[in-house]
């Protein structure tokens, strides 16, 4: 898929492949960075050079920008206030790049246009990223927080080792989706491959389509909800009733992940140990002998 052409008016000021890591304020070159402004209309000299009609505070041609500079430039745009509206940054011409923004940690909205390679947004935090394209292996590996939405398909190991945050894939995902998760939420609107939730010890996995073999393999406390067919469930896992509380929780999760459908169409898959623990707790709260 060809990336869309960026608006020409932004090219000069917003750094197609620029090497200035100080953000847009310094992107106009050294002439404005030091000394008095040049003579002329003083109002013109106050201009940041930014297209004020754009929804983005900055834009980057990923293929033309050094990864370190890209990381620093976008991080500089981040806001620390959790309640503040996040500044939006557009990344285009991704060219299937591997390892995009490892360890990224800033309050920024990222619109990423184009396919990405392996391990995008590894151990990232706080950002709200929307990827318009397919991604390779290890999407959001070790995600610590924030949101990653993929309007495309994801390769193997999407959401692997997640600690928190949300990953939503609107296409399908490969094998080992949500493997070794220990927190956060993993949503796939389409199908996922084998060993979904392998070794996961926490968090929630929701699959709108079908699931491959060994669902929940070796996992322990992860909650898995599936709407489509399941090729096989791993030993130690079982289908559990969707109780009212789980229905409510799942309904809210579906809305937040923009997955269409009714929560009651899903089946809940949990470890047998966890189901037994739940049932024994219910027994304590609402004993039959009363």
């Amino acid at each position, binding site marked *: 898929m060809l990336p869309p052409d960026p608006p020409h008016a932004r090219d000069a000021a917003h750094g197609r492949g620029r090497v200035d890591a100080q953000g847009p304020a310094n992107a106009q070159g050294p002439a404005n960075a030091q000394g008095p402004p040049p003579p002329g209309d003083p109002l013109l000299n106050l201009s940041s050079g930014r297209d004020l009609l754009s929804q983005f505070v900055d834009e980057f041609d990923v293929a033309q920008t050094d990864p370190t500079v890209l990381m620093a430039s976008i991080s500089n745009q981040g806001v620390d206030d959790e309640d503040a509206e996040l500044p939006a940054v557009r990344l285009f011409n991704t060219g299937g790049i591997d390892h995009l923004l490892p360890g990224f940690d800033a309050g920024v909205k990222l619109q990423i246009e184009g396919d990405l390679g*392996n391990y995008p947004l*590894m*151990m990232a935090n706080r950002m709200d990223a929307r990827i318009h394209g397919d991604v390779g*292996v*290890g999407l959001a590996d070790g995600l610590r927080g924030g949101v990653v939405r993929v309007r495309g398909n994801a390769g193997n190991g999407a959401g*692997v080792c997640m600690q928190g945050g949300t990953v939503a894939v609107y296409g399908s995902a490969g*094998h080992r989706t949500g493997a070794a998760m220990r927190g956060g939420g993993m949503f796939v609107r389409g199908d996922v491959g084998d060993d979904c939730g392998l*070794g996961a*010890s926490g968090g929630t996995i929701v699959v709108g389509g079908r699931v491959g073999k060994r669902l929940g393999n070796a996992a322990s406390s992860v909650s898995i909800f599936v709407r489509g067919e399941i090729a096989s469930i791993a030993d130690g896992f079982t289908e559990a009733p969707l109780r009212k509380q789980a229905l409510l929780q799942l309904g809210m999760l579906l809305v937040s992940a923009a997955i269409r459908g009714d929560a009651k169409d899903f089946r809940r898959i949990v470890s047998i140990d966890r189901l037994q623990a739940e049932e024994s707790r219910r027994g304590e709260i609402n004993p039959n002998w009363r």
Partner: protein
Amino acid sequence: MAESFPDPAPSADLAFVRWQPEAIDAVPTPRPRVNPELAQVIRLFWDDPPWAYVDAGVADDIAGQVAKLGVAISGMACEWSKEDGQSEFLSRSSAPRILPYRPERYGLTPDDWLRCNIIDVRLDRAIRGDGGFGYDANDLMRWNTEIDSDRAIALAMPPELVSVDDLPIKVRQLRAIAPPRCSVFASCGSAHDPTKFGDFKACDWDGWILRVDRDDILEGRWVQRLLLWRDALVDAKPSIRLWIVPPPLAAADMAKLFALGVDAVACDAYCDRLLWPTELGTRPTRDDTRQRLQRGLPARLTQILAWADRQPGNWFVDQIT
């Protein structure tokens, strides 16, 4: 006067490796390494320090003290960072540091890969103190995972990889995120067959750490496994560095491992005791660990390296049966 540092095991385990004062032409010396100067950089390393035995401040201090002896230290930032998030050991750029990259990434933070010299990709299931697969509760607590020990699952490979053929993807990722001069090693127990780990050439590992300290099934035959691994690795990449985590060995036997073609030897059997609980069963303080360190450990490690530096051509390896 400092006490002598006791050997963790009696000598003569490796009696078949002998040093001759006169060079012998026909000795079956280890294969020559293409890149001997690289192998000289680190000769001793502390592979799996039990950091959870001590407070983070004590761990930070003793890591720095042992690193001053030329020992590369393995661990993560969370193991040395005090409550204020600071670590003197981490802030010392000259201290050689190994980052253990476990399949489950417990405790790993972005800080870790920015400040390490070697990444150790562990391709083996972790073993708890009680011998089962998994992680100890103390370690999990130190790594801020909030997972119970009985729920922490130990995996054998980075879980996003479907097969060993995908390992090159992982190596490329780690090379991309780590500092430019950081090396990427793999590690496993010697009970594995070298062919199990796919195409060594495609992965282009900088080195391999072979753990023979826990392979009880081998019953002392670990040297044969070491030589098997050495040949397989050198065949794939002559310049690859081979490090070994031996069972407890006397200092003289530690030195002999270099004669077998090993580039660095783990001194866990010597260094772990720095972190052991006190005689009263309490966690050792900074003073305790420093006192233990001064009881001859520096001299012992220096002695190992001095023996190892004897003329390589004068080492004689008997036929191993």
